[in-house]
């Protein structure tokens, strides 16, 4: 298959372009390292979260939550279910004031509703250290139920154990409305942000390969072969898509395994590998498509290597890569919606920080894929568009 030869050729070309390799692999990793270390030297260290628990639920799930939470080292649980001195309202106030970091309320009846109320001042990463274990607990209990263990027991004992096998809803809110003002950066945001930035920088080597192929006349040589034009495009998307995924894997590995060596432990992917991979693939498609667009529409090599990175930096700035979107003024926040880097970052954060379901990232995924497809189409249509355009100018 010559698609493999095409992929191999692209990789060889990239391999010989050492400057680009440094830009897309080494630079983003250094930036993450420096930025997270800077961030960490800014003490916002919380060793143990103090968590209030109101759990009047006596079902298997309710009990499992009681037990499970106690086992988590970094959470200091105070069960106030039967405490007459603290009402729910007072508990909420104490969270807002920062006396405790979170309040967990489990509904008494099924369908079970678990509400988690956080101090808005704590980093997102810390929130996920509460949300994730609870999600996991719920999942485990549901799994056990669905496997029928519980049903069997009920049958044997001829007793209905109140199982909450259907719906468990999780809510996350904040104890005050200032949520948007104070959302500190941490590794959980920095790592995906610069991963995205690095992935989009792939347009530099990609654009320059496309321009060289055109300027040196190699394109003609390719197009007289009996290989379909489509194969060249397809091979290129695959080749650079894979490079993008390698970047993603390395960056996340840096977050998971290297940052802890520097005592930075905020980064965790908590079993979300598959959705993260899907997001990374969508970003890879968008970035590769954008590179192909830049490469085919730039007149010169210089144009591509100047305009490309400038566009990426602008996209990063408005997209919440350098500073989180919530830290931006309202006016800028509106434009962020138009940056592909923002879609990517948002999708990453949905998974890493907000622990959302797959459904929550579908809009961002779709935007990224449509963006990539539009870029590639514009690149393919270039001969027709520029011809139409020049005909218009002539008239």
């Amino acid at each position, binding site marked *: 298959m*010559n698609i493999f*030869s*095409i992929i*191999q*050729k692209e990789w*060889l*070309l990239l391999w*010989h*372009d050492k400057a680009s390799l440094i830009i897309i692999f080494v630079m983003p990793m250094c930036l993450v390292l420096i930025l997270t270390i800077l961030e960490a030297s800014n003490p916002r260290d919380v060793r143990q979260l103090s968590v209030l628990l109101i759990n009047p639920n006596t079902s298997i799930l309710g009990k499992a939550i009681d037990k499970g939470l106690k086992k988590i080292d970094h959470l200091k649980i105070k069960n106030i279910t039967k405490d007459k001195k603290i009402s729910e309202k007072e508990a909420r106030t104490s969270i807002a004031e920062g006396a405790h970091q979170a309040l967990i309320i489990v509904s008494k009846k099924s369908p079970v509703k678990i509400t988690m109320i956080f101090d808005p001042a704590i980093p997102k990463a810390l929130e996920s250290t509460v949300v994730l274990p609870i999600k996991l607990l719920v999942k485990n209990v549901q799994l056990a139920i669905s496997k029928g263990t519980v049903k069997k027991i009920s049958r044997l004992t001829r007793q209905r154990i109140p199982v909450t096998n259907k719906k468990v809803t999780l809510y996350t809110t904040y104890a005050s409305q200032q949520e948007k003002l104070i959302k500190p950066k941490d590794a959980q945001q920095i790592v995906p942000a610069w991963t995205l930035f690095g992935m989009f920088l792939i347009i530099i080597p990609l654009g320059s390969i496309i321009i*060289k192929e055109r300027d*040196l*006349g*190699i394109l*003609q*040589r*390719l*197009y*007289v*072969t*009996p*290989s379909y034009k489509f194969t060249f495009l397809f091979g290129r998307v695959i080749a650079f898509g894979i490079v993008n995924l390698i970047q993603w894997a390395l960056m996340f590995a840096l977050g998971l395994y290297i940052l802890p060596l520097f005592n930075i432990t905020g980064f965790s992917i908590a079993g979300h590998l598959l959705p993260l991979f899907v997001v990374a693939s969508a970003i890879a498609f968008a970035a590769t498509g954008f590179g192909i667009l830049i490469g085919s529409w730039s007149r010169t090599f210089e144009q591509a290597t100047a305009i490309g990175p400038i566009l990426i930096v602008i996209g990063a700035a408005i997209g919440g890569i350098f500073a989180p979107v919530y830290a931006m003024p309202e006016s800028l926040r509106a434009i962020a919606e138009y940056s592909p880097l923002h879609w990517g970052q948002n999708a990453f954060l949905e998974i890493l920080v907000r622990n959302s379901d797959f459904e929550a990232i579908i809009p961002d995924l779709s935007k990224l894929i449509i963006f990539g497809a539009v870029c590639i189409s514009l690149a393919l249509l270039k001969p027709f568009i520029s*011809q139409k355009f*020049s*005909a218009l100018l*002539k008239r």
Partner: protein
Amino acid sequence: MKENQIIIKIKNLVKRYPKTEKPALNGIDFDVFQGEFFGLLGPNGSGKTTLISILCGLLHPSSGDAEIYGHSIKNKSQKIRQIIGLVPQDIALYPTLTLRQNLHFFAKLYHIPRKVINERIDKYLEVAQLTDNADQLVKGFSGGMKRRANLIAGMLHEPKIIFLDEPTVGVDTISRYVLFATLKNFNKEGKTLIYTTHYLEEAQKLCSRIGIIKEGNIVTHGSPQELVTRTEGAKDLADVFIKVAGIDLRKEE
């Protein structure tokens, strides 16, 4: 195959580039026969590259058509692509890859079977006398070496017809000699060559038939000898050129 079989039939080809007044090709009409070494001789800008690009299927003609082995070039058949080869005017190789990597890649695109691919590459490296340079990056090559590399990259798949667009521009004597020998050999094997140049002596030495192209028209064609005898008062091809095309190619250098 018969000696006089027409393999390329060019029928009133016209090419107008967008935004230009004069057509680059203005009704080209001629045939190429099996086994010919056909020279397309003309000054810069006369339309040689345009004609070759159309015949290779890289450009669409504005009107007219051409047939290669009876297939219209407008169909862009994969079969035809397999039996034609192009040596472009530019050094169309990846400068940052080695020559072998380049050749391997292009050979793959021509679906040369895995078993013979290395053998084939070695054979042509030998032909171009580049065996010792095979694993060096192309960007480090001299002009002549690049030309030789460019040549063999277009003939690895051993096509029946090869289009060569000014393959000897900026080449030292040794390389020129290697190139000529390679082309002559190829022709002897029964391959058809269509060769553009603006060097007179080259055309005279190599070609069995010459077409003179000027401003997008083939003004005359025939064997070098025929052209000289047919043109009144011409002693050699240069005279023919001055008389027929009104251009002194010797001054163009």
